[in-house]
């Protein structure tokens, strides 16, 4: 036995290094000193992340379905209107040269379908009764590509060409008319003259939207234009996009292209109540996430309080040999970070696997599904993997865990090496 190694000259002033491979190895191995506790805590973190990602993905799936259902019925994702139409939906506020604009929009790669509509309020009379209704002139071929209303015919058929109409189920009942009956539409034309037409009911629709079923009468666009003194013009160009997430971006681009004479409005502007509902539900979910993170925070706090308590002798020794309290605290924070990463790996892995699988197979809704089918909605819910929350949930967990670990770790700052070593002896 010799001590030649001591012959190495004494080093000069020390430089201190916070993280090295040994520090990381030490942190990782320390995690496994209490395997059960580490697995429980990391499992809790992972499960919380899974719940967050799964819940958010379900919500995104539900919202996509709701928005798709709502926008596909009538409104579309975007509408191009005369700039005054939103405030004054009168017959005069039209989009002119509609055919050329329509043709241009149909060539846009992000627009799946586009249809021109003209609309006016008029009196609609059956044999015995008269009601006020919104009369909408549509292009049946383009409308079939854009709107789901043609699929909601409960009696008769959808529009073809000529002087024919489809009518909302409630309005049909109110007017006491049905398929094959004739109704008379009486209103004011664009130039102030009388607009009138007698048209045959070829179909009755049930959209599930009370207002539409009670007030909408659709007729063929040319017939409408003739009756209401319109030329190559309409009131709304409804657009269905290939990806509704691109709505806002395309709205800006189109608005720039079309100039100030026309206004591009998104589905959220057309149906603000839908966006408010989505926002409200998302806020509720975010509060749930914060509560979940708080729960995990308590669990991690407990884990690290135990760790600091159990390892106080070790910390006393580390302080004695020259480690600074801040370095020990950093070491513990590193352990917390590694535990969090373990939980994140578990949670993200489980989330991606389960959500991807369910996005393919869908989740059957049982009796509720039957009810939804009546409203032309699918009887299965398809979660949509929310990539944003795949990042946000781990970040929320990481921050929460670091804070939770930091509180008990602060005790190290007040540790005196002699006291900790004496207490443990």
């Amino acid at each position, binding site marked *: 036995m010799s001590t030649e190694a001591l012959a190495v000259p004494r080093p000069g002033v020390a430089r201190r290094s916070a993280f090295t491979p040994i520090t990381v190895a030490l942190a990782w191995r320390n995690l496994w000193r209490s395997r059960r506790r580490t697995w429980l805590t990391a499992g809790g973190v992972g499960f919380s992340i899974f719940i967050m990602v799964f819940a958010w993905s379900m919500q995104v799936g539900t919202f996509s379905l709701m928005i798709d259902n709502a926008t596909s019925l009538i409104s579309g994702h975007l509408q191009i209107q005369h700039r005054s139409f939103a405030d004054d939906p009168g017959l005069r506020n039209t989009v002119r040269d509609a055919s050329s604009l329509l043709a241009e929009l149909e060539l846009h790669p992000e627009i799946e379908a586009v249809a021109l509509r003209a609309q006016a309020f008029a009196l609609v009379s059956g044999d015995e009764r008269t009601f006020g209704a919104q009369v909408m002139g549509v292009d049946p071929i383009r409308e079939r590509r854009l709107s789901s209303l043609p699929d909601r015919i409960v009696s008769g058929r959808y529009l073809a060409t000529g002087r024919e109409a489809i009518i909302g189920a409630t309005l049909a009942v109110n007017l006491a008319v049905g398929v094959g009956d004739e109704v008379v539409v009486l209103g004011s034309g664009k130039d102030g003259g009388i607009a009138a037409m007698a048209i045959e009911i070829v179909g009755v629709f049930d959209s599930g939207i009370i207002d539409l079923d009670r007030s909408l009468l659709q007729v063929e666009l040319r017939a409408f234009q003739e009756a209401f003194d319109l030329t190559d013009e309409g009131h709304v160009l409804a657009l269905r996009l290939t990806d509704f997430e691109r709505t806002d971006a395309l709205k800006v681009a189109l608005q720039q292209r079309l100039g100030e004479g026309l206004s591009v409005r998104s589905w959220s502007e057309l149906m603000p109540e839908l966006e408010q509902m989505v926002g409200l539900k998302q806020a509720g979910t975010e509060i749930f996430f914060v509560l979940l993170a708080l729960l995990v925070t308590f669990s991690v706090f407990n884990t690290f309080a135990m760790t600091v308590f159990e390892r106080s002798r070790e910390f006393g020794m580390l302080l004695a040999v020259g*480690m*600074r309290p801040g370095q020990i605290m950093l070491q513990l924070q590193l352990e917390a970070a590694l535990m969090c990463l373990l939980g994140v790996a578990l949670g993200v892995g489980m989330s991606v696997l389960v959500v991807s699988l369910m996005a393919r197979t869908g989740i059957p809704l049982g009796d509720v599904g039957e009810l939804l089918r009546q409203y032309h909605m699918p009887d299965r819910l398809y979660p949509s993997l929310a990539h944003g929350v795949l990042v946000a949930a781990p970040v929320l967990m990481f921050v929460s865990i670091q804070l939770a670990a930091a509180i008990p770790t602060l005790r190290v700052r007040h540790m005196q090496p002699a006291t900790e070593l*004496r207490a443990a002896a």
Partner: protein
Amino acid sequence: MAELVANCRGLTRIYQDDAVPVQALVDVDFDLAAGEFVSLAGPSGSGKSTLLNLIGGLDRPTSGDVCIDGVALSTLNEAGLSDLRLNKIGFVFQAYNLIPVLSARENVEFIMQLQGVSARKRRERAVAMLDSLGIGDLAERRPGELSGGQQQRVAVARAIVTHPVLLLADEPSANLDSKTTAELLELLTRINREHGVTILTATHDPVVMGYALRHVQLRDGRIVSDEKADSVAA
């Protein structure tokens, strides 16, 4: 006269446990010259560990001061004390106090990492140190896989690998059998004689005292005798 490694003047330490003050050390003057191997002996509660802690900068005196290698500890803040302990003092504890999840080599390297020694040099020096203490073949074993004597050698390696001016050992043989104790003491003696490392050890064990060159006796917090050894065991 040899250079002083430690110089204590008027050291008093009073513990205020449960509102009853306990005088662990009373007005102690004590010098430690470079190259000495000194044993601090005395019954339990005599103040051995307290004096060791004060000299090692692990605790602060109620009054008086300690100078280590010319630096008055009272002038240092906590960070300064940490640096002093890291660079000038080596500690060997009764319970070894190795980090259980690190191998013997990593335990030795860890302290050099705190000093900012490069990874390559750390590894070389740790391996050389463990080799020189006769446990090179156990370098990759964790403390739980080593005997008490082997663990204490790793602890000694960790304490001296930083080339301290002073090695403090608190009851280093308390958990060792007589054979292992003798081996450890021979090792400490070589470190002291061949490389001039000053050693101060608190002990109950007459065998340990037999290896020291100077014996200091404490009783009730005061030094009652301080004399050179007539002869040493090694």
